[in-house]
């Protein structure tokens, strides 16, 4: 059976649900979008136009939960990398949001460039458990429009791309770009090569332009990952219980809005709650409290029968090494053992401010270890090797049994790619390599090899032309 971790009992999940409904009904949610307020008012929410607060009745939540799809596929440019939701294993989403890079040659932190981010996409493309990427997010070496960041990402990854749109005027250009990549207007809807992240502003606020953009985008059925980021103790209440309820309420308010606007539009029920560094007021994401909340919100997604994406595999560490590994393992294993569909965070250090190429490879190793633990103990009859025990008899060994030969390279035993298992002398002879040195070699190999799934030149040409027109039309 799968190894299973549970963070909220069924009764506690009901409590979180009820508290979320109470927040929505009694306190309400502030929407900066008039269009959103119109939709909510039309469907029975109590809207105060002056404060822009909508109080959302329970019936709307019930209705939204009925129409939200329980499964769909996030398409990848390389079809074999499509990611079906819900998933039987935890896939990973590259956080490409770091404005700094740990320089691959010097190891020093510096401002990230677009080239760094393209390299990150290339490396992540080769990771065993990579499922999706966030688009490039940096300005250097020259100002990059949001559309350029997204569309150029498709040139460097074969995976599904997830990002934000900032304004409704980006939507037509984005759809045109997706048509160029997917091949037709119908394929844009069918393949779903793009999804958007929708971060509510804790506590209980929806942005205006982004909300309006997504209300247009849903006509094309691109999935929306609702991604509350309430920080327990600062932008959220100072208990995990209430911060989980607050984040859940924000996610439900997003679900209601988009389902009322277009019943059946695909929603990923995500979460990136944090805890507060009380010494500075800053956001912490490598903390045990972060992952407890993230895992609990994953359980709430399953409580509602919705696909989910949870922040994890994260670190507040500033450098490669022990703290990074400790925090990343701590914020990954609980999510994987909880069965979340997507873990968002690999590659990032310094509270997602800095990206590292080697860390992507190290994080994939962490992910593989976590998956092995999650996959658990295969208790099927085919794994009952009683006959081997009988044949070997007391005092023998199993090394020459056929089952041992079959198993030694099977999923029964994880073969690490970075962790050292050599004898001391051999390890010493090889120069005492550590995980990060091996990861560096792997990065060099990937970047030296030709891209496996290059985007055809004619499509790149079309995208460049769309980006040029968009940049002329849209003022950032």
């Amino acid at each position, binding site marked *: 059976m799968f190894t299973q971790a549970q963070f909220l009992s069924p009764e506690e999940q009901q409590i979180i649900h009820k508290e979320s409904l109470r927040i929505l009904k009694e306190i309400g949610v502030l929407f900066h979008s008039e269009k959103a307020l119109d939709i909510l008012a039309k469907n029975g929410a109590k809207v105060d136009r002056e404060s822009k607060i909508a109080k959302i009745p329970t019936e709307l939540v019930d209705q939204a939960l009925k129409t939200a799809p329980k499964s769909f596929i996030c398409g990848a440019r390389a079809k074999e990398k499509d990611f079906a939701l819900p998933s039987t294993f935890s896939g990973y989403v590259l956080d490409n949001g770091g404005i700094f890079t740990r320089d691959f040659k010097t190891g020093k932190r510096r401002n990230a460039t677009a080239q760094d981010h393209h390299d990150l996409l290339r490396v992540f493309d080769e990771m065993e458990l990579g499922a999706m990427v966030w688009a490039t997010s940096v*300005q250097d070496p020259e100002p990059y429009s949001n559309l350029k960041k997204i569309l150029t990402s498709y040139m460097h990854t074969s995976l599904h791309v997830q990002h934000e749109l900032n304004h409704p005027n980006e939507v037509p250009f984005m759809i045109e770009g997706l048509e160029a990549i997917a091949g037709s207007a119908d394929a844009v809807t069918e393949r779903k090569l793009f999804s958007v992240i929708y971060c509510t502003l804790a506590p209980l*606020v929806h942005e205006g332009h982004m909300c309006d953009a997504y209300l247009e985008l849903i006509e094309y059925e691109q999935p929306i990952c609702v991604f509350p980021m309430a920080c327990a103790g*600062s932008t959220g209440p100072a208990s995990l219980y209430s911060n989980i309820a607050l984040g859940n309420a924000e996610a439900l308010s997003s679900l209601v809005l988009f389902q009322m606007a277009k019943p059946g539009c695909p929603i990923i029920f995500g979460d990136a709650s944090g805890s507060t560094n*009380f010494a*500075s*007021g800053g956001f912490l994401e490598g903390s045990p409290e972060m992952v407890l909340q993230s895992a609990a919100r994953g359980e709430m997604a399953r409580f509602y029968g919705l696909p989910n994406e949870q922040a994890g595999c994260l670190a507040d560490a500033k450098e490669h090494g022990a703290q990074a590994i400790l925090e990343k393992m701590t914020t990954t294993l609980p999510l994987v053992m909880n069965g979340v569909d997507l873990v968002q965070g690999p590659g990032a250090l310094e509270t997602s401010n800095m990206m590292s190429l080697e860390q992507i490879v190290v994080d994939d190793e962490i992910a593989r270890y976590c998956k092995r633990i999650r996959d658990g103990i295969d208790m099927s009859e085919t794994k009952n090797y009683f006959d081997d025990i009988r044949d070997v008899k007391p005092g023998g060994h199993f090394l020459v049994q056929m089952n041992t030969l079959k198993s030694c390279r099977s999923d029964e035993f994880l073969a690490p790619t970075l962790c050292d298992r050599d004898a001391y002398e051999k390890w010493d002879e090889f120069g005492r390599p550590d995980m990060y040195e091996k990861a560096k070699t792997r990065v060099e190999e990937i970047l030296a090899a030709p891209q496996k799934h290059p985007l055809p030149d004619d499509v790149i040409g079309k995208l460049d032309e769309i980006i040029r027109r968009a940049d002329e039309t849209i003022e950032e």
Partner: protein
Amino acid sequence: MTDYSNIESALLSGDADTVCNLVQAELDKGTNAAEILNDRLIKGMDIVGEKMQNGDMFIPEVLMSAMTMNQAVDILKPLLGEDDAATSGHVVVGTVKGDLHDIGKNLVTMMIGSSGFEVTDLGVDVAPEDFVNAIQEKNASIVALSALLTTTMPMMKKTIDAIHESGLGDQVKILVGGAPVTQAFADGIGADGYAADAGSAAKLVKSFV
């Protein structure tokens, strides 16, 4: 000599009732209001600032001290003469246009406000021209710009450019901050200073006057 240590320790504990009672008791004894403000309360907040920098006080504790300070100042205000009441300067604070995040900006506002400055908080999503207007209207000597998003960082430069274009560049010192902002970025866009957190912001603002 009067012992004010209780005012300071109560201020550090964020005990507003005790601080206000002690301030009132000092006034009743005939102690000068300006002396209580400058020599005790503001000095007490300096200790709070230091403890915050050292990680000895947590932000919620610091904010409680700042709110306590404000209540005590309210008692003293009517008794302060024109010169006594003169603050260290006027600071305009806001989150730049396109950005709705305000928790860091609010922390900075409270810390600067409790350091003896008048503060005008313009809120979030503030356009460059609104910063310019507020600087003129309040005759501010310092402006502090906040941004959390990488996408709104360029708006900091636009705001600074607008301040210079309006001819106010010589009048104000410009301070920038926010999670993605760095000293190098601040230098690159022509800011006069960068602060990584609210305590440093208050310290920097004091160094400007």
